[in-house]
């Protein structure tokens, strides 16, 4: 996880903390689903805080009402009154305990409920994001929103928010009590508290600056670790362990210095706050004593109870300042979560959908509710009329331009067509735009200019999910999911029977190795199938596409890791698989694309040659040179 690159740290460049109120509002919105419960929680906090304040003040009542008279004025001890007072205090405390209990229990449900909804919303929204988003964000960056950011949010909901609320209630109620006892002393305490707060903010700011530095150093070190550990085998082969370790130590030491400073300032904050609190107590005692003894503006009892109150005042303030960091950090985390939720979803204005149909001998198409095995595009028109076009797999490009960003166009003026059942191959160097073209057909990206038609329909009019359902994709990097081999094949079509999955595996040549696995088709694949070889994974992914049975297939370096001999064995299956389908093939091995109906040679986003193998060889152009090995590919 590259924390150094993460956005939305709670500190700006100068290390000053900033509060993200927008995110706070949205957290509250999530909480509002639990309005009634939260109302009860707030009530409980109030009861609890008041019980605490009454408790600390009531001691004074006991001393003044029942003890002092006995000691000072030799009055007879009012034991019954004392018992009553103690019982009253007990009842108040009991209310506090019960309130705490309900507050905690209810808060668990509310906070965990909110977290679940945040997670579900986050994931759900992530599924709608365009591929572009995943191109521009690292896995670690996205993952951290599910892990550390959600964790800090949880911390905030379960601990920080209730504590902040109860601190505020305590502070307000003691403040009122203090004003009642003595206005001048209250101003004294407010001045000292303000001074303490300013001082502590300065230290917190220093700590914040170093925390930013620490995150940067950590990101830097993590990047280095990732690079060297994943290239560890090369390190070994070159006896390069020492040099690598030296560089690691240098970065590690730097991180250590930054971390020491960041934690040092954070650690000393508490003792400073605590002791300044004591200092303030002494100042109050001296000032209060002077006011009482000298001009006699105050009674001694008032000074004593004020001192008691000052403790009830500084304690929640210290608590609050301890929580404020957690609060800001959590909001920064929440900000990152909401940032993902605010990312724009894929646009889909498509209204042409796929429908199960019956086609009679006259070619008349009627829609069917049951599965017929025949599909057609259902095209509703503005007039209310609905037309049906049979699904064939014809793909046409008209003057298509495309760029991943507006400044840099990577495909220029691409025009081509693939008739149903044709095999079209793309050949060219890395970066020539081969994969990009196939990513436009399934609308992973939208074109800048020109038109793409599928069975004569502009693909912008086709609902994306239906468009993609009519296209099969096999990519060079195979992604498998935790589950059995069978589950992974069935991913292509969820209602496929076991028999259909096995037939697809046989067709693609995967059946042989699957049967060799310890539990055959029931073998559980974990960790992205890291136990399987790259070639075996590619065979599985071909089987997955085969079971989906789409009229158009895109094979992007689908057999690159299968050696030529195995590819030959698989070839028959592949040929069977491609039969009757429109197939787009990208392959670096020219033997794979040789028998295509059309081969397009791409260079820097332009089709420079096109034709079948024989005609291209006869042209003696770029393709001929590639084929004879005069040029290197990739």
């Amino acid at each position, binding site marked *: 996880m590259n924390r150094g690159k993460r956005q939305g740290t709670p500190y700006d460049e100068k290390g000053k903390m900033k509060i993200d109120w927008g995110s706070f509002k949205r957290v509250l919105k999530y909480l509002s689903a639990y309005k009634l419960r939260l109302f009860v929680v707030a009530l409980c906090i109030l009861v609890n805080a008041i019980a605490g304040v009454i408790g600390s003040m009531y001691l004074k009542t006991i001393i003044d009402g029942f003890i002092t008279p006995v000691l000072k004025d030799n009055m007879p001890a009012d034991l019954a009154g004392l018992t009553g007072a103690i019982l009253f205090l007990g009842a108040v405390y009991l209310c506090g305990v019960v309130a705490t209990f309900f507050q*905690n229990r209810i808060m668990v449900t509310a906070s965990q409920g909110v977290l679940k909804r945040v997670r579900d919303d986050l994931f759900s929204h992530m599924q709608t994001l365009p591929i572009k988003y995943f191109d521009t964000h690292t896995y670690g960056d996205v993952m951290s929103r599910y*892990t550390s950011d959600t964790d800090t949010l949880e911390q905030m909901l379960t601990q920080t928010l209730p504590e902040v609320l109860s601190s505020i209630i305590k502070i307000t109620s003691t403040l009122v009590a203090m004003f009642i006892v003595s206005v001048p002393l209250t101003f004294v305490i407010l001045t000292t508290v303000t001074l303490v707060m300013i001082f502590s903010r300065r230290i917190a700011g220093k700590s914040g600056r170093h925390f930013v530095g620490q995150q940067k150093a*950590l990101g830097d070190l993590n990047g280095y*670790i990732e690079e060297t*550990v994943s290239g560890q085998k090369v390190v070994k082969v070159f006896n390069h362990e020492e040099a690598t370790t030296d560089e690691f130590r240098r970065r590690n030491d730097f991180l250590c210095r930054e971390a020491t*400073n960041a934690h040092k300032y954070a650690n000393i904050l508490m003792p400073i706050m605590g002791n300044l609190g004591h200092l303030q107590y002494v100042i109050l005692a001296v000032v209060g004593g002077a006011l009482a003894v000298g001009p006699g503006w105050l009674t001694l009892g008032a000074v004593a109870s004020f001192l008691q109150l000052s403790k009830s005042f500084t304690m929640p303030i210290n608590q609050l300042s301890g929580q404020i960091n957690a609060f800001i950090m959590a909001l920064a985390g929440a900000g990152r979560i909401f940032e993902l939720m605010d990312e724009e979803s894929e646009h889909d204005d498509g209204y042409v959908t796929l429908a199960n149909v019956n086609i009679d001998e006259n070619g008349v198409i009627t829609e069917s509710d049951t599965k017929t095995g025949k599909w057609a595009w259902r095209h509703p028109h503005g007039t209310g009329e609905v037309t049906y076009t049979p699904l064939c797999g014809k793909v046409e490009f008209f003057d298509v331009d495309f760029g991943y960003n507006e400044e840099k166009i990577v495909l220029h003026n691409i025009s081509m067509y693939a008739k149903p059942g044709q095999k079209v191959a793309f050949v060219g160097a890395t970066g020539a735009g081969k994969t990009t073209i196939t990513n436009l057909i399934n609308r992973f990206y939208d074109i800048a200019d020109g038109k793409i038609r599928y069975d004569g329909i502009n693909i912008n009019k086709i609902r994306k999910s239906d468009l993609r359902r009519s296209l099969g994709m096999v*990519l060079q990097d195979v992604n498998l*999911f935790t589950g059995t081999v069978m589950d992974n094949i069935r991913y292509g079509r969820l209602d496929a029977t076991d028999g259909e999955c096995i037939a697809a595996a046989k067709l693609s040549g995967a059946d042989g190795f699957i049967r060799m696995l310890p539990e055959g088709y029931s073998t559980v694949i974990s960790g992205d199938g890291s136990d399987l070889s790259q070639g075996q994974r590619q065979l599985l992914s071909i089987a997955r596409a085969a079971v989906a049975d789409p009229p158009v297939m895109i094979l992007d370096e689908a057999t690159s890791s299968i050696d030529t001999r195995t590819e030959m064995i698989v070839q028959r299956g592949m040929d069977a698989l491609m039969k009757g389908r429109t197939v787009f093939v990208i392959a670096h091995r020219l033997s794979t694309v040789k028998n295509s109906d059309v081969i397009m040679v791409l260079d820097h986003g332009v089709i420079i040659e096109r034709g079948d193998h024989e005609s291209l060889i006869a042209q003696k152009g770029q393709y001929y040179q590639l084929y004879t090995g005069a040029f290197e590919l990739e």
Partner: protein
Amino acid sequence: MIRKLLRSVREFRINSILAPIFVSMEVVMEVLIPFLTARLIDEGIDRGDMGRVLTYGGILIAFCAVSLTFGVLSGANAAKASAGFARNLRSDLFDSVERFSFSNIDRFSSAGIVTRLTTDVTNVQNAFQMVIRIAVRAPFMMIFSLVMAISTAPSLAWIYLTVVPILGIGLGFIMTRAHPVFKRVFKTYDKLNRTVQEDLRGIRVVKAYVREDREREKFGAVSEDIYRDFSRAARLIAFNAPLLQFCAYFCMIMVSWFGSRMIIQSGGVDFTTGNLTAMITYSMQILMSLMMVSMIFIMLVISRASAERIAEVLDEKPDIVSPEGAVTEVPDGSIDFDNVTFAYSDRSEKPCLDDVDLHIKSGATVGIIGGTGSSKSTLVQLIPRLYDVAEGSVRVGGIDVRDYDLKVLRDAVAMVLQKNVLFSGTVKENLRWGDPDATDEQIERVCRLAQAHDFIVAHPDGYDRMIEQGGANVSGGQKQRLCIARALLKHPKVLILDDSTSAVDTATDAKIRASFAADIPDVTKIIIAQRIASVEDADVIIVMDDGRIENIGTHGELLEKSPIYREVWETQKKGGALGE
């Protein structure tokens, strides 16, 4: 396990010891301060004695200053100790990883090692800092407050003596019930992360097959599990606070009740109002520190998993180490495999290499051909002893590879791996991996040999051009040629190319082989290739099939006697070897 990790504290031992010592002293001050403020009220304010107020005020300020000093010192030391501990731990982990053999690395996977070095170390660092500060502070605070409370009013000690055990049992009960639920929650968290990770990596597959809803369902099920389990655990933990509060209030009421009666009965002689307020403060402190202890307990449970994962790496013994009295000189580049059997794991039923017997003369050029999974790469990885044989022996220069010093052996046997990696840095820096002291002339020489010089100087920055992580900004063929040059710079006696010219065009490939033959005739060259053309003119060609040597011979001989070789040759001739 904990002790193993603590060994990494080393030079920060002093800080790690000072931090809790200063914390303890800070605690002493913190306990004495309420004692003094009680005096200030009793003897100063209550009696209206300004002199006393000032005296106690002065003493209090002095105590605050001392307490502040200790607090700051403990905070600073704890920060230094924990950051230093993390540094050493990371360093030790990295050192162990550097000592790992290939099979050790395979066992943990790169991703697993990276997580341990990053997230897990951070978790342990935070736990360590907490232990040396708060975990010392809380029990110390409790004991000291207890001592003060009991010495102030010995006759009230029974209140604490009854409440503390009840509280301890109560907290223990809740924690033991919650612990298994927490453990389950962590497992479910792993599942959640895995689901997200798989979805992220496979997002193109998800979208291509329109499986967004299925992924949502999958995630929803896991997130529901977390909600249920976590709520259960948290509901149990929710008993903690009210239980604690109940005990705290119980103590205070008892102290107030019996305390007031004592004051009244003794007429304020044995027990004063100041004593009473101090007792209540002590009660609070005792119970607060118990609360801390229970929190620390939860945190330790959480960090324990990380500590275990780190210990796994530290405990892992490198499979391959240099023997004592190792041979430090490789005589020549001859290679012998004597009845070698090898398997990646002891549990595999079928060995990857089965009874391989092979003898290669120094300076020979050897080609290896075979299908996916025929163990070509496995065979050559045994030569620089990247793995150890299960049975038989591998000799280089007539000496068993297990008798060599590893560094010497691997310097003599240069290998270009199938999975080539270049590192971020300049071209020159990458090449110098082969020989850190290489001169510019030497670098240029090997680059010419590997046919890399021309494309390097074609770039405006030439040899100082920056290579991005993983070599992302050079083409596959260029990357392979740079890797070959890097290996050549080691001046090896044996050079192994594991499918290292697959992306290089046939003409350049031929030039590389020609320069090998002309310029490094004494070096034994082993070339694994998919293209027959790359090995055709080798002195001897080995055909591998299913972990065994199917046939050995020259190109002409193999066309005669090896059906596999003939088959491959024919498909490739048909498929595209027009230029040959």
